[in-house]
């Protein structure tokens, strides 16, 4: 069996499951946020009664992150609803806005707080919940009704997915390349529905040498290929990260050598070059080189995909000592990463110093303009701007106005473009 099949089997009380089969599983963690939390809670109370208690308060995690720093009264009321529910249910894992507990983007906060444990099942009311698969967890996005059902029962039905395997060969990632380039390449190759209903499993020497943040970039964007979940077999790197963040017991599982796969794709990392997804679809692939000279108005580095500490370090390597040619927004995914900007250095300068000296606009930890949001959202595209972004989606209107154009790329490519004024190939700035 594959890793995904093993986790589903174990959580449904079976010794074996096969793709296509529908089973009920026991849930280890349910995560929700400020956009989908309130309606999930509404359904939970309607279905189970006003006085109903969640099935296990140790397993419910609430992370407000989407519409946070806004004057929008409805958005703020949604956070009030989460607050009231967390207090009423006495939930220990609520990361409230405006307190020291506040984290920021849920998919990066979950690992930081130790909720991404190998071998477990995590459901979240957000499509990028698949990010946690980097830790060898079965993690996928669900809607409000399913979340409400879990709140009351701790169970959910799942259809066992087939698994597609993606192997990256190569001992070292070329210095100009990032995990973002690899996943954009895959999505470009298989299309935005190329993995619909399926698991995307990443392996090979190329993946084994990646740190957790890079693996998270891979699994984060499986949803952009329609994937149900993404996974990486846990290893030393995984264990070291997770052990630091939690004392809880967990049992990792691994794909069998002779497991059945829907399909197998193999890549040599040396053959891959910096990639860009053109408007308005993540599979609209091109290389950065092909698009050189494309006019831009704005650059954006942030989100659960491209707003992690290693993403900012990459961008800082290029921005350091150079002049920006356009408005450049820097939005750390979490408060831990925001603090990291003051600690992590490149050539003796902190990332924060590098970005402020260059004139970047640095925002508060949250989703910010990754999904547009209320009109006063930091970095939001208001009209016909062309933006190059380290985020994950460039659908029409995703970052605000539906007249805007969004190019998706790695933090290297975004930074190289920001200091060039048009789309640029980062290999001009970083050679191997």
């Amino acid at each position, binding site marked *: 069996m594959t890793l995904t099949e093993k986790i589903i089997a174990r959580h449904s009380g079976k010794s074996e499951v096969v793709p296509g089969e*529908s089973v009920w599983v026991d849930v280890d963690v349910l995560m929700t946020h400020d*956009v*989908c939390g*309130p*309606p999930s809670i*509404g359904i939970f109370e*309607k*279905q*189970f009664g006003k006085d109903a208690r969640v099935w296990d308060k140790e397993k419910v995690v609430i992370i407000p992150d989407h*519409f946070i720093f806004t004057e*929008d009264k*409805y*958005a703020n*009321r*949604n956070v009030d609803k989460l607050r009231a529910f967390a207090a009423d249910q006495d939930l220990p894992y609520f990361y409230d806005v405006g307190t020291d507990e506040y984290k920021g983007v849920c998919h990066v906060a979950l690992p930081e707080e130790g909720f991404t444990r190998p071998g477990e099942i995590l459901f*979240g*009311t*957000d*499509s990028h*919940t698949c990010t946690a698969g980097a830790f060898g967890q079965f993690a996928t*996005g*669900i*809607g*409000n*009704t*399913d979340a409400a*059902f879990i709140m*009351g*029962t701790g*169970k959910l*039905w799942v*259809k066992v997915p087939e698994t597609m395997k993606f192997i990256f060969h190569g001992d070292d990632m070329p210095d100009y390349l990032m995990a973002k380039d690899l996943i954009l390449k895959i999505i470009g190759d298989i299309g*935005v*529905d190329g993995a*619909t*209903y399926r698991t995307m499993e990443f392996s090979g020497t190329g993946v084994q040498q990646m740190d957790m943040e890079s693996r998270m970039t891979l699994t984060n964007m499986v*949803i952009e290929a*329609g994937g*149900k979940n993404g996974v990486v077999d846990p290893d030393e790197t995984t264990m070291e990260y997770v052990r630091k963040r939690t004392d809880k017991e967990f049992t990792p599982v691994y794909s069998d050598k002779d497991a059945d796969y829907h399909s197998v794709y193999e890549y040599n990392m040396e053959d891959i070059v910096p990639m860009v997804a053109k408007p308005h*679809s993540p599979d609209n692939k091109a290389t950065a080189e092909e698009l050189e000279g494309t006019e831009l108005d704005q650059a954006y580095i942030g989100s659960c995909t491209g707003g992690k500490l290693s993403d900012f370090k990459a961008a800082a390597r290029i921005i350091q000592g150079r002049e920006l040619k356009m408005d450049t927004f820097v939005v750390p995914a979490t408060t831990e990463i925001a603090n990291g900007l003051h600690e992590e250095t490149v050539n003796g300068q902190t990332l924060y110093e590098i970005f402020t000296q260059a004139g970047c606009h640095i925002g508060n930890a949250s989703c910010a303009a990754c*999904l*547009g*949001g*209320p*009109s006063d959202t930091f970095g939001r595209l208001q009209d016909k701007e062309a933006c190059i972004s380290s985020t994950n*989606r460039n*659908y*029409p*209107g*995703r970052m605000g106005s*539906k007249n805007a154009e969004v190019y998706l790329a790695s933090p290297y490519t975004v930074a190289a473009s920001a200091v060039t004024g048009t789309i640029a190939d980062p290999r001009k700035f970083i050679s191997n």
Partner: protein
Amino acid sequence: MAQTATKDKETTDPSSTIITGKAFVVGRNVDTDQIIPAEHLVYSLDDPEEKKFYGRYSLSGVPDKQSGLPQGNIPLVEEGEFESEFDIVIGGPNFGCGSSREHAPASMQIAGIQAIIAPTFARIFYRNAVDGGFIIPFESEEDLSQIIETYDELEINKEDQVLINHTQNKTHNLRPLGSVEDIVMAGGIFEYARKTGMIE
């Protein structure tokens, strides 16, 4: 024929076999940001008055030229209105890709849509439509967004799994609902779980 009264969840019987009404056609990869743009996700789904706004903005993020094909520039819901004059949405492949927002199928139901037909769906949208009992997602054998035109008069027969286009005088096959049929017929995951004794 098309119902004119409110077609809210409470008034649509999930077990009735015939759905009739006017087609509204969009193309491929219509994502959840196009179905309900993120800026509108702030309204409460529990408040009947606020909830209506999801109907108003349903499919409002679809680029104008691709809204109401083949002609384009036709909104699902007229400006200032809360309900659509259309009843059945026809989409291209990968309908509902993108975020997990259940507000997407909910907005279509609130706008008065009863069914969505597409050759393939993104899985979270499909799951949300079924488990929430909002609208029935039917898979078609062909990409009907290339054949059916906005304003065509349609009839879906759930039992025989066919779609009849009265305007064009054509019949198209729909795929069986498969493992989700029981949940669809029950009207959602809660109704199904009650029926089968999983919850009280």
